[in-house]
């Protein structure tokens, strides 16, 4: 299992995947908004989205777990 970590502080702008979705390595899974910029967070590996632990609008910090991929 691999964790999807937030690379920086920001707000969750968009969640691109649902639990159970299959993703490839480096697919965009979540979009963060920070300093009026949209930042794409990509899957750390290929697999199935096991969990998403944030929702749209949440404030997240660096290295916060956003979800997991199995």
């Amino acid at each position, binding site marked *: 299992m691999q964790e999807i970590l937030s*690379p*920086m502080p920001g707000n969750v702008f968009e969640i691109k995947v649902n639990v159970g979705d299959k993703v490839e390595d480096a697919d965009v899974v979540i979009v963060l908004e920070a*300093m009026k910029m949209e930042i794409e967070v*990509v899957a750390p590996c290929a697999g199935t989205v096991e969990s998403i632990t944030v929702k749209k609008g949440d404030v997240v910090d*660096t290295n916060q777990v956003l979800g997991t991929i199995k």
Partner: protein
Amino acid sequence: MKISEVFLELFQTSGFANITWRELVMLVVACVLLYMAIAKGFEPLLLTPIAFGILLANLPMANLMYDATAEGGQWWQSGLLQIIYSGERSNLFPCLIFMGIGAMTDFGPLIANPTSLLLGASAQFGVYIAFIGARATGLFTAPEAAALGIIGGADGPTSIYLSNALAPHLTGPIAVAAYSYMALIPLIQPPIMKLLTTEEERKIQMQQLRRVSKAEKIVFPIFVTVFTALLLPDVAPLIGMLMLGNLFKESGCTDRLSDTAQNAMCNIVTILLSVSVGATTNGQTFLQIRTLAIVVIGLLAFSFSTAGGLIFGKIMCKVTGGKVNPLIGSAGVSAVPMAARVAQKVGAEANRHNFLLMHAMGPNVAGVIGTAVAAAYFMRVFG
């Protein structure tokens, strides 16, 4: 009077009969810029009001830039754009924009990695190259060349601030060049970044920055204001407003002021500043060889600044054994946050797991301070 004579007189007093080729050229320039902003999405928030200001200022007979005070009249008898322009000419707008930028900016990456200051400083390389180049053309005096060179810092408010002090007659073309190049950063920088770095260098993933405490973030704007204003009093208005905005953001007890500074106030001042920047481009004075030289030398300044940051980034990459991605050096030009965003984008193109944004924000905000310091140096020498 016959009806045909009425129509003839109406036509003769209209703009259609009085428009000059210079004004026509400026209207075409305005439309090209509007196209780039609206259809191509090049920083539309800046370029749209600038382009429309150019359009308005070059409509014959409309007298939107008429200056009544030049003929002994009252300021309120001037044209609308001339009244707005007084906020640019007095440096009020550039300083208020800096307050908004301060309220938007997280200086954490710079505090966490103070070596970013070196990248921000090295990305002022183009400022001095442009100064030397402008002097070499023989078209500009030393103060004019200094005002022109600051375009290399890619900082609109500082460019206006310095040109108001050293060469107020060139503020229009300098501001238009500076803001246009800032808007075109996503086009100008990537080819230089790819030319000066290898694929392997662009792929480098940087380690997470250390966490910066709230106390550090509160002390930083106060310290920088006092230190910079004591060292370089000429830029106290710019740095002071930048850091006041930042203190609103970081203090935690002035959220309403921070919100107003970074949204409502910044948007209002951006509209007024951008329109009046565009309005300074009168066809009569703008379409001259010196303006063309400003546009060309400004582009060189910008390119050399990007290159200066990248080259120093490569040096830091070597010194740290490959821990620094050289791309973050290009963000040392102070267009916040556009330059950092470009570093992020080019880095992510090479390696999708690359998150350079916060690392690039360090040199980016250092560049803001670096350009202000360069401006202060020029003001001290030539002011």
